[in-house]
């Protein structure tokens, strides 16, 4: 999961990831637990999560 510079670190995505695969500290980072399901993408208020290629 690619998270771009728009990310403000609000943590909204982390609460919608069912795999607990997002760590947040000033900005979000996807961990190895990410299965690239794309569920978190629409919940980001600043369009920081990019659709995997």
């Amino acid at each position, binding site marked *: 999961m690619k998270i771009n510079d728009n990310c*403000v*670190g609000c943590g909204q995505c982390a*609460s919608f990831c069912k795999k607990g695969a997002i760590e947040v*500290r*000033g900005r979000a980072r996807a961990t190895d637990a990410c299965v690239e399901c794309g569920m978190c993408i629409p919940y980001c*208020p600043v369009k920081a999560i990019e659709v995997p290629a």
Partner: protein
Amino acid sequence: MKTIVIGAGLGGLLSAARLSKAGHEVEVFERLPITGGRFTNLNYKGFQLSSGAFHMLPHGPGGPLARLLEEAGAEVRIVRSEQTTIRVPLKQGKPDYAEGFKDISFIEFPSLLSHKDRLKIAFLIVSTRKNRPSGVTLEAWIKTQVKGEWLVKFADSFCGWALSLKSNEVPVEEIFEIIENMYRFGGTGIPEGGCKGIIDALEAVILENGGKIYTGQEVSKILVEKGKAAGVISESKKHEADLVISNLGHAATALLCSEALSGEVNAGYLKMLETIQPSAGIKICLAADEPLVGHSGVLLTPYTRRINGVNEVTQADPNLAPPGKHLTMCHQYVAPENVKNLDSEIDMGLADLKELFPGKKYEVLLIQSYHDSWPVNRAASGTDPGNETPIPGLYVVGDGAKGKGGIEVEGVALGVAATMKKILG
């Protein structure tokens, strides 16, 4: 009368509920899959964290938001906080929590001043209600009145908690308007069910009155015909309306109708928009088995590096956490120049918590930061440009268009109430 609302944040939903109750045909378009914007619950590990707010209404059940909810027919129980306290160091000469502290009540703040300054404050509390100071920042004004640094520290922690600003950024007029509102409406409160309790109640009103709320529908353009707002384009489809209310703040709204605003007559408006600054902040959410604050109000923390204040929402509504757990949330102001150093800002906040809660066991659930296009406040308090735009029939509501002296969501409510007055008369 048909009204389209862009954005289902608190400002948008308040407007939609009020207008649908007054008989308008209302449609709300929200980009995200969820409603509520920065004022709803996020379920995280069984705790009701939030997308923004601390589940706290600055003026509780007596404030402008509570009044507007009632007017719109939205039923929410708001629990008035028992008290507001201030954590002060035990040794006055050593302003350091690590050396021990005690909590005093909010109204006891003058007790930390010198005898002379205490008398001065007692005098000012009376005299300023008639003759309000103006034209300077709060910090500058305090410095002309009293010598010690305590009052500035206290003001910084209050402004940091309530506005995510420092006292040298807040016009003194705005603070006196806020103080007046504290007399008028009373102190803080927590809605049952947290922020989402309010959002759910507003949605129920809108749906009951035949209004529609579309999620996952981004508005890409505001239509302007014959110089008037005429509808929106969302997901390539045109939707016509008599009125358009934007919940996005003035700047983002202007971007959606930039052609209509391109004329020379609007240059002043566009120039003014460039001066609006959002405020930034960090929220650290803690889970604990024992209370860390111990009451349902705010604990202000003036002598930290960064943390301005803490609240414990489970004191008002235990259902905001799993059984037996407490949810405690800490706020810290972030200065504009430090937005790029969030990592070290967070480090300082976490170090503060160690000193504020020595020997207490807690888990850091989530650290959330807010700035720029998803800020604590779209327009720093005291700088809001009102609810009208140069385009007739296009209004702006929300925290980029708050009413005077309205802290956060109370300001959102004052702005919406003023807009409703313009529309409904």
